[in-house]
């Protein structure tokens, strides 16, 4: 049976990981390469690298780091941040990324999703959506969650999947950073609407939140988190052991 995936997300700025981590045996907590290796050797099923550097200078640095990371780990690697054109896809894929995540780039130009899917295959195109309730309606936000696009989220996600997105990361702005658990209502709505893998993001604060996620939404494929892993609040091997003991299929 296919396993539920646990995915740490690393924010990289100017070639360094933002919010450094303090793990035993890890000397440089903000080295993307060391951290990626640490996660890949400690139960992560996949890694997401998010480039939060805007400048072109930072971009070149990111590309170098990305190549180094891709060379070091032997699990799937998704890269996002500032992906606006097919050239951006090309650039990160050549550095060894397996999948590319698009967010604002798809909002500005939805054709990007279909063009990339046609060129690199659906499995390569991950739609990342920042979603927030506005007057009881799920709305898509752009620019790192700062700008309400006015688009209804479920139909937007469906549309992108029809255009070729092979996976969807749903980041609930409402639950993000609160550590009160994943946004089960929002995630259920997305899971019922599309038939591609859905990755839950935003709100993980404890191992129980992952258990609840996989129990209550059996069709969800993965749980993604950043700070709870980075600060060592949840250790992935312990989390997976607990999930396994509770009959959730995971890769041990």
């Amino acid at each position: 049976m296919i396993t539920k995936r646990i995915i740490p997300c690393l924010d990289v700025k100017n070639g360094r990981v933002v919010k450094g981590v303090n793990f035993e045996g890890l000397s440089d907590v903000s080295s993307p390469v060391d951290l990626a290796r640490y996660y890949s050797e400690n139960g992560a099923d996949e890694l997401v690298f998010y480039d939060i550097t805007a400048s072109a200078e930072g971009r070149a640095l990111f590309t170098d780091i990305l190549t180094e990371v891709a060379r070091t780990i032997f699990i799937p690697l998704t890269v996002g941040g500032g992906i606006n054109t097919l050239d951006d896809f090309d650039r990160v894929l050549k550095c060894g990324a397996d999948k590319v995540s698009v967010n604002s780039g798809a909002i500005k130009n939805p054709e990007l999703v279909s063009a990339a899917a046609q060129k690199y295959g659906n499995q390569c195109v991950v739609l990342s959506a920042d979603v927030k309730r506005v007057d009881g309606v799920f709305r898509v936000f752009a620019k790192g969650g700062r700008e309400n696009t006015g688009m209804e989220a479920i139909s937007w996600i469906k549309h992108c999947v029809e255009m070729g997105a092979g996976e969807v990361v749903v980041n609930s702005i409402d639950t993000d950073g609160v550590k009160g658990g994943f946004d089960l209502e929002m995630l259920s709505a997305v899971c019922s609407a599309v038939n591609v893998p859905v990755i839950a993001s935003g709100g993980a604060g404890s191992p129980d939140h992952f258990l609840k996620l996989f129990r209550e939404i059996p069709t969800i494929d993965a749980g993604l988190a950043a700070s709870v892993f980075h600060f060592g609040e949840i250790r992935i091997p312990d989390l997976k052991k607990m999930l396994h003991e509770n009959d959730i299929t995971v890769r041990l």
Partner: protein
Amino acid sequence: MIAIIDYGVGNLFSLCSSLRFIGADAVVTSKEDEIRTADKIILPGVGAFADAAEKLHSMHLDRLLCEEAARGKPLLGICLGMQLLFERSFEYGEHRGLGLLKGSVVPMKGVIPTELKIPHIGWNALHFTRKHPLFRYIKEEDCVYFVHSYFATDCADSVIATAEYGKELTAAVAYKNVMGCQFHPEKSGTVGLNILKAFCETERTR
């Protein structure tokens, strides 16, 4: 030396890194002399069957691969590269493969329960159907990473492992010196590296 066949299909970055990591000497090539002199061949591939088969044909690599396989040289197909080893595929029409293994490649759609997502993407456990040297460093139920929408069938001669996704899908095949993995060993962590290592240690069959 391992020749990784370069025919413009898929990203070879991770495969090259994996082989480098396990200390194997590999070259990415489409040159006949390099392929002829290599000890082993890896046929990678991502994308559509028909395009890939056509590329192999137009680059005269199809005949070359069949000749080298007939000489007993170990050949490993990965993902679409594995599917190409079979006689035919029914991915958007009917297309001929290399015919090195008996069997066909068919869509999962309509064969697996409708509630299951296609592609089959993620980590899944291997079930061995036969003992094989490729598995000498791994064990039953070890997980490997899959991404595919089509699978090999009617291949009882060669199937050595399956993975359960609504039904038991062909996960790995081997017949004499011709081997294949539906999953991506280069993306399957230590388990995948151990499969590649085992392949690197296989000997010519005749």
